[in-house]
């Protein structure tokens, strides 16, 4: 056996690029065995977009069921309806938006920090496969009469819980890989303050994912342990959402829901200075604002199961009100950069801007939902009837369709932001530019559909439509608005389909004349070829500012 006890000395660190024969079997084998971060990122993106289409179709089915609030008619019973409802809501987060951002990050972050690869590439590959197979198992188990309801098949429910746990654990592993890359794989001269904004936003979002997803895992573990025994001691009863979903509800409501959209801010923060062709003003303030937004989104403590009045707590109220503050700071910073630069419109920045508007709308809904609590707090100071007059309409929003409105605004904002990122970084991701026309069309569909799907739910919230139940008496306008909301989700699905179509068309496009930096980017990913080589960069690059490519051009 060969023993290498020799003291390691400097040698060529590069691993040779495997020469790939054209055989399809070998290609498939190469994809399955890859530890190459760019391929993993592509697989994440394509799989998440595929899951997005599936999840949105489920959302449309659920929406159709809500167009007739007299009972459950379309999907085959209340049990099936609840299973699909939770699949739609959980799927949009853990099958679509979070992995989509992680896919972008897996591809782009190593390039941005000047690293030849992601940290722990094999762990990153395991994370991808764990998420993909866990996601497939999750869908399969839910469809096999699983889900989180007490009334389904007990084995399938167990499998649903375990599969969701596997999915989340895998996403956590991917998060660790991305965060470690940002911290420990940076190139010479790149202090953390010089890290590109998208990478920074992934660090901030990842920090909150890292401290909130494990709490979700703990709840899932308890659900599983409970259901596994002969006697169910935790989850047999409950009001509101049935079964163990009551224990998971915090992960899909405010403020936690905002943390799924944090990378959108990083993506926009990359695009705005590029669009303005100048450096970002007050960069460190912008970084602090992104971090503050992420931290204010931490919601793992706000578990209604253990505190039914959590939404009335001062921490909760103030946290949700403060959420808008960093967004306003960011808006101000971007506006200043755009005004003081020479802005050039582009599809990706337009789509990302649409995503930001949706996020702001989501923040607005959160503000409305806690407004009643804020005003209601005055009751403690005196017996004033006008307080009730003001706060009552907003109090009622807490458990109504306003939950769905906020969820859709925020999580779909994340989806829109990620799509904008795919268009922006397409030359690095796929070695192709995507069609601006199709991108614009997709952006319009995504933003327009989100507005339809969310705004109508918001109005329904004021009309007291419950968030989940469909067999209740409601005002006459509710069902019509549910038609509008469902149409909105269908339009979002069409938007996703357009993106997938554009990607399919782009593969056939000739890319031989693609420039290294076709968008005029400022950060390191634009300093290498499109697509980047196996080791990302021909040689290690040292940087002296946060916008190294502007330094090269002598820009101030």
């Amino acid at each position: 056996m060969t023993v290498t006890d020799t003291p390691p000395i400097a040698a060529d660190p590069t691993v040779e690029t495997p020469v790939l024969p054209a055989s399809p079997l070998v290609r498939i084998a190469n994809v399955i065995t890859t530890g190459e971060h760019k391929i993993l990122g592509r697989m994440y993106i394509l799989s998440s977009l595929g899951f997005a289409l599936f999840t949105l179709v489920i959302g449309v089915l659920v929406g159709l069921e809500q167009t007739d609030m007299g009972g459950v008619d379309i999907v085959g019973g209340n049990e099936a309806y609840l299973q699909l409802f939770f699949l739609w809501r959980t799927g949009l987060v853990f099958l679509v938006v979070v992995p989509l951002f992680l896919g972008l990050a897996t591809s782009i972050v190593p390039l941005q920090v000047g690293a030849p690869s992601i940290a722990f590439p094999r762990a990153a590959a395991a994370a991808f496969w764990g998420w993909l197979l866990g996601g497939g198992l999750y869908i399969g188990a839910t469809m096999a009469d699983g889900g989180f309801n007490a009334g389904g098949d007990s084995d399938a429910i167990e499998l649903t819980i375990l599969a969701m746990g596997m999915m989340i654990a895998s996403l956590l592993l991917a998060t660790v890989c991305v965060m470690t890359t940002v911290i420990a794989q940076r190139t010479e001269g790149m202090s953390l303050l010089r890290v590109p904004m998208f990478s920074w936003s992934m660090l901030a979002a990842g920090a909150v994912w890292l401290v909130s997803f494990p709490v979700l895992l703990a709840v899932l573990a308890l659900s599983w342990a409970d259901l596994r025994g002969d006697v169910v001691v935790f989850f047999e009863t409950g009001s509101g959402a049935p079964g163990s979903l009551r224990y998971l509800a915090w992960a899909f409501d405010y403020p936690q829901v905002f943390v799924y959209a944090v990378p959108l801010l990083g993506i926009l923060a990359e695009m705005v200075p590029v669009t303005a062709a100048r450096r970002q003003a007050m960069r460190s303030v912008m970084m602090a604002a992104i971090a503050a937004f992420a931290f204010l989104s931490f919601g793992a403590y706000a578990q209604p199961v253990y505190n039914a009045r959590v939404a009335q707590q001062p921490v909760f109220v103030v946290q949700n009100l403060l959420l808008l503050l960093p967004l306003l700071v960011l808006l101000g910073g971007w506006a200043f950069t755009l005004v003081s630069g020479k802005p050039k419109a582009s599809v990706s920045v337009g789509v990302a801007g649409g995503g930001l508007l949706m996020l702001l709308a989501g923040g607005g809904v959160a503000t409305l939902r806690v407004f009643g609590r804020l005003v209601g707090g005055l009751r403690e100071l005196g017996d004033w009837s006008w307080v009730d007059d003001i706060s009552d309409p907003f109090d009622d929003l807490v458990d109504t369709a306003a939950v769905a409105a906020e969820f859709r605004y925020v999580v779909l904002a994340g989806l829109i932001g990620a799509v904008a990122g795919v268009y922006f970084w397409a030359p690095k991701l796929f070695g192709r530019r995507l069609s601006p026309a199709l991108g614009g069309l997709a952006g319009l569909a995504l933003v327009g559909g989100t507005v339809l799907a969310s705004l109508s739910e918001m109005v329904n919230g004021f009309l007291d439509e419950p968030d989940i139940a469909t067999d209740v008496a409601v005002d006459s306008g509710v069902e019509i608005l549910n038609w509008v909301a469902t149409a909105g989700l269908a339009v979002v699905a069409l938007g996703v389909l357009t993106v997938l179509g554009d990607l399919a068309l782009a593969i056939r496009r000739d890319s031989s004349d693609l420039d290294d930096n076709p968008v005029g980017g400022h950060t390191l990913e634009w300093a290498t070829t499109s697509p980047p080589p196996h080791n990302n960069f021909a040689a290690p690059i040292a940087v002296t500012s946060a916008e190294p490519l502007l330094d090269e051009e002598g820009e101030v």
Partner: protein
Amino acid sequence: MLTTGFKLFFGFAVVALVGAAVYGVASGDLSGKDYLGFVDPSSFVGVLSLGWKGGVGDHSGYVVLVFATVSAAYLAFTLVGFRDADPEAVARLGGSGEIPPAAGPTANNVWPAFGAAAAVVLLLGLVTHAAVFVTGLILLAVVAFEWMISAWADRATGDPEANRELRTRIMAPFEIPLLGAAAVAVIVLSASRILLAVSELNAVWIAIGIPIIIVGAAVAIVAMEKPSRGAVVGVLAVGVLAIVVLGIVSAAVGPRSFEHEEEHTDEEALVTEVAR
């Protein structure tokens, strides 16, 4: 000097700690009508003793916030200790002052994907049968071992080709026989499930037909002047896949009823008769 990473995570820790303190106190009264929560003096004791002496309103939320503080503070102090793992700080570790290159991409490796598949088997086993669970555990142990060997081989020398060769020389004597045995076991098990699921007559036909197909395919391949490797692999893969899929389906359907069961029933009837 405090590093950026420290400021990021310590900021989070402070926010979480303040949140924990306020939440622990203000959630003290869960039954009242007041919106901002009644501040119970005993809540302060609970908060200050980290919940040890009770008095905290919502223990769950409070403990989660305290642990968020602990986690974020842990990361903050780790990062300040590492000077944010800045390249320049890492360079000082080595003594030479040179910034070591970040790790490059690893060679292709099947074990991450295989590990995920093994995890799926493990989860299925938790729900279905202990044997499946144990299979998943064994598969995960194999993955862990292979991963360890691969991680070692990657850095055995500075020559990637030599590293690959080294890994193969060590592992192939184990992998090839074990994988071969496992493949044979899977095929035998699948074939047995198929033969047990169909009727007796059909089982005979299948037992005759499959060898004829195998021999036929082999003869066809041999007869080809230059059989392509892809075609041979493809034929084998399709054949094995078909047997395994049919085996799984057959296992799900279950075995046919056997004559000896009837005999057993007769026997039981006889025993009952005698007993009477």
